[in-house]
Structure formats: structure tokens, C-alpha cells
């Protein structure tokens, strides 16, 4: 399993200052834009919020995985953001969120990257995996925790 095809260390943010859900989305989307993953920040974030309105992507344990399939996305990618402040997220366990995995998938996407995402999503159900991710302090450790599927 090669997470590096969808995760670039440049898309890992360790010290996000956002205090609100939508600000955090903007911050991560800016990172995507800078690294040429998406074409339009507002367009993409709107699609993420639209998805969020269906039901929350806060999966509990302080983790959320905001995501969207959007026409503003060029290639499948994920961004990881560790938040300096807990944010209110409407998670399924009602706990605040400290770690964000933002997922960008192009419209009509149908490729091998999706298989990696599927495996990653399944992995979130594993308690040890969640602990390792939450404990990881720097880019390398986060990358390492994700790499070992």
C-alpha cells in the first residue's frame, strides 16, 4: 500500500490555527491550491460543506474526514491537519475535533487511488491506527503511521 501516491508531505499541516470548522477547511484547501491539487478554493470548500450537510464527517475520537468529489479537483489527494485548538464539529460522539483528514477526489474519478482511500477509510476503524496517528508529532511520523497499512 503506497500512501505516497495520494499524500504529499507538503499537504501535512502541523500547527493549524483555525478555531472553526469552515476556517479549517479553507486553510487546508489553500494548501491544496498551493500544491496544485485543486483549481478553486471556494468552489472546492463549498462542495465539502455540501457533503458535510448530508451528515457530519466527524468519525469520533477527535478525528474528522471532510471530503468531496468535486469538479475543482485535479488529482486524488489527502491533506492532514493537526489543530492547535479543539474545534466544534458535530461528530458522532459529540467530542471536539483535533485532527483533520481532508480528501479531494476529482469528479468521474475511477482509479487506483480510490482503492487506497477505501483501505484508509477502513483503517480508521482500527483503534491502534487512530492512536498512532493522534500521537504522531511531526510530518515524518504522520507519514509513517499512514504508510504502515
Amino acid at each position, binding site marked *: 500500500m503506497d500512501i505516497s501516491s495520494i499524500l504529499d508531505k507538503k499537504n501535512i499541516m502541523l500547527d493549524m490555527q483555525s478555531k472553526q470548522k469552515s476556517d479549517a477547511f479553507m486553510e487546508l484547501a489553500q494548501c491544496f491550491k498551493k500544491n496544485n491539487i485543486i483549481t478553486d478554493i471556494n468552489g472546492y470548500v463549498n462542495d465539502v460543506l455540501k457533503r458535510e450537510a448530508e*451528515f457530519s464527517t466527524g*468519525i469520533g475520537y477527535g478525528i474528522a474526514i471532510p471530503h*468531496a*468529489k468535486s469538479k475543482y479537483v485535479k488529482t486524488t489527494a489527502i491533506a492532514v491537519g493537526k489543530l492547535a485548538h479543539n474545534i466544534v464539529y458535530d461528530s458522532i460522539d459529540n467530542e471536539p475535533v483535533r485532527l483533520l483528514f481532508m480528501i479531494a*477526489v476529482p469528479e468521474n474519478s475511477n482509479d487506483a487511488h*480510490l482503492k487506497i*482511500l*477505501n483501505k484508509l477509510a*477502513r483503517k480508521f*476503524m482500527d483503534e491502534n491506527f487512530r492512536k498512532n496517528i493522534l500521537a504522531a508529532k511531526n510530518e515524518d511520523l504522520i507519514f509513517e503511521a499512514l504508510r504502515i497499512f
Partner: protein
Amino acid sequence: MKIVGVSACPTGIAHTYMAAEALEKCGRELGYEVKIETQGIEIENILTPQEIEEADIVIIACAKNVDLTRFEGKRVIEVPIDKAVKNARQIIMDAVEGKNMSIFHLAEEEKEQKNQQTGVYKHLMTGVNFMLPFVIAGGILIACSFMFGIHAGDPNDPSYNILAGAFNKIGGEVAFGLMVPVLAAGVAYSIAGKPGICSGMVAGMLAKSIGAGFIGGLIGAFIAGYLTLFLLKQIHLPKSIQSLKGLIIVPLLSTCITGFIMIFIIGTPVKFLLDALSTFLNNMGTTNGIWIGLLIGMMMASDMGGPINKAISTFSIALMSSGVYGPIAACMVAGMTPPLGLALATVLFKKRFTVEEREAGKSCWILGLSYITEGAIPFAVADPFRVIPSLMAGSAIAAAISLGSGCTSLAPHGGIWILPIPNVIGNLPMYVLALLAGSIVTCFCVAFLKRKNNYEL
């Protein structure tokens, strides 16, 4: 305890898989076998009909509309997908206890629609899949017996060879003899499940013995299948003897009734048709070669082994004994082009055929060259209204060219393998041309009629 389920979320990226993982994992921990189909951007981990059949509980964790028609009559529990992510353990325990559970039933009109759209086609395909190995194995074994000489399989012929005789018995008598019964058993099984096999197979065997061919077998199979289904629904027994129902009572009744229908209702018009066609052919002059050729070709390819085919081949063989060798040559070429034309089409127009058909196409080369028309039957069963007219067109052209240009044959069988024997075929070049032309016509007709098909390579 076996549990199956479906998970699906609006984008199909994350929750679909988290819910599936959570349910499967908690199921394992609780000691149940759990398989969840993930309807994400792609559908994966697809539930087979057998798995659904065997499952005790169906869990639907979907935040979008999914087709539930497969779960007709199962114990189904529907839960919000985020609840499945969070509380999979609770959901499974509730399901096992039977909480929030209901038996899933389609709305009546949905049911009808479903039957119309997929029912008949699915039954035909199941029958074809049952039958295909018999056609291929049997056909190739018959071709093997030809290698010893065209008549080497016949104990009464001077060229009789004991190995050829065995090949002919295994392939020609038994494997080919079982072809229509197995087709019918497959169709009836698809309709009514295991209790349908007996009446379906008997109906197919009766179709063979009354000379009704594969079309008669199909009619019998549908009668057998739906009758079995009807009886299964209508007969109610006390619980203590319930197991007798599927094992004894329903097969006994449906086999008996279907059998009587086959013999007295289907058999009568078939015999009438055969007699009428024979009389018509016997009264017909043999002057106008091309027109009679067209007729011979169309009749040969119309029901492949049924009454129409039988009438024309019997007629042509009878003419041989009075020294007229043209019609039998036309029959043979018209019987070779259906498998050959289809084989050619599966090579030139791969995408218009299913993977199974492409495989069957390979054996059709040998079957066609050996004048084993039956090689075309699986194609005809699967898609009769496109395939049979194409076969008839090609065979008609082939037979018309053959008879029109005065080709003759001194042998009633043998296909391409008798062509090299000197003086067996009269006007050999035109005969080969007839064979090529007929095969090409069938190939392009079937490719044209199936032009909307687009299967993956």
C-alpha cells in the same frame, strides 16, 4: 449465523468503507460471518445470490438509495450509515436478537417489472451456462470420431473402428443427447430453484423424444419452472412434514403435469408440423435450384434439431436414395455456416459477445467445420430474435449457392472432412464458395443485429 449487508454513502469515498469495516470487524468479534457489499464509487465485495440466499440477516447501512430487490423475503434491518460506523456492535447484537427487523417485500408492481426486465433473460442465460459444456465436449468428441473416417463410428459400416464408436457414443449419443434436457433443467432451476430441476430435465428429455428440438425444450422448461414455482407457493403443509414439499410433492406433481403437457399438447402440433412439412416438400418439384436452396437453408437453421430442421434433412436424405444428391449437399453447407458464422463474428466483433460466448466461439470453428450445427444453439438460446434470423440468412445464402450451382454430395454427413475425398462433392469450388459466403453473411448479420451490445474485452 451468517450476515450480509450493503453500505453506501453519498460520495462513496469514506463512510461506505468505514461502515463495512466496522460491521465486519464487530461481526467477527461476536463470532458471526459478516460480508458487506460496499457501494462506493465502484461496487466492490459484491454479494453473490448464494450468499444472499444463505444469509440469516441483511443489514442495510445506506445514506443513499440502493436497489434492494435482491433481498426479497429476507430479514432486513436498515440503519443510518453513521450509526453503523459508530455502533456497529450494537447494531449486530440487535439484529441477531431480531430488534427493528422486518421481512423485506417489494411493492407488487416493482416485482412485476423486475420479473419482466431480467427474469426471462436470466433464466435463458442460466440454461445456456448449464448446456455449454455439453455442447462443446460432445461436439469435439464427435469430431474426434470423424478422424477415424466419416462412418467409423457406425457399427454397421465396413470402416467401423471401436475407438471411433466410443467417441461417437460418448459425444454424440450421450453428451449431445443430454444437451436439451440440461438446457431445460438449467432454465427451470433458474426459475424455481432445486425443486425445478427434475421437471425441467424431464421436459427437456421429452422435447427431445417427441422431436421438438431445443425450442420445444425451452417451452417445456418454462412450463416446468413456473409450474414448480406456483406449486411451491400454493401448497402449504404442516411443519412436521414440510420437508416433503420440496423433495417429493412439488417435483412429483410438476413433473407429471409438465410431462403430460409435453406429450399431449406440445407433441401434437410438432408432429403435425413435421408431417405437413414433409408432405409439402415431397409435393414440391426440384426444378428451381436457387429458391429451393433458400428454403432448405432457412429450414436448416430455423430450429436446429427441431421439427423444421428434421423435416428438411429427412426429405433430403430420402432424395439421396432416389439418386438426387443436390439437396443433401445444400443441407450440409447450411448446417455448417451457423457455428462458423458465429465463430467468425466472435473474432471480428468481440465486444458484441459475452466472455462465455467468445469462448464458445472458439469451439464453434471445429463444430461448424464438422457439420455439427448444434454449436450455434447456445447463442440462439441466449438471444433468439437476433441470432436465429442471422443464422437463417447465412444458411439460406449458402444453400442457394450450393443448389443453384449444381453442387452435390454423396455423403450425408462429415462436413469439411469429406471435401478432400475425391468425387464425394460435385462442383467443389462453388461448394467452398457457398460455405464462405454463408458464414460471412451470418457473421455480419449477427454483428449488425447485436450492434448495441458493448461488452468489455
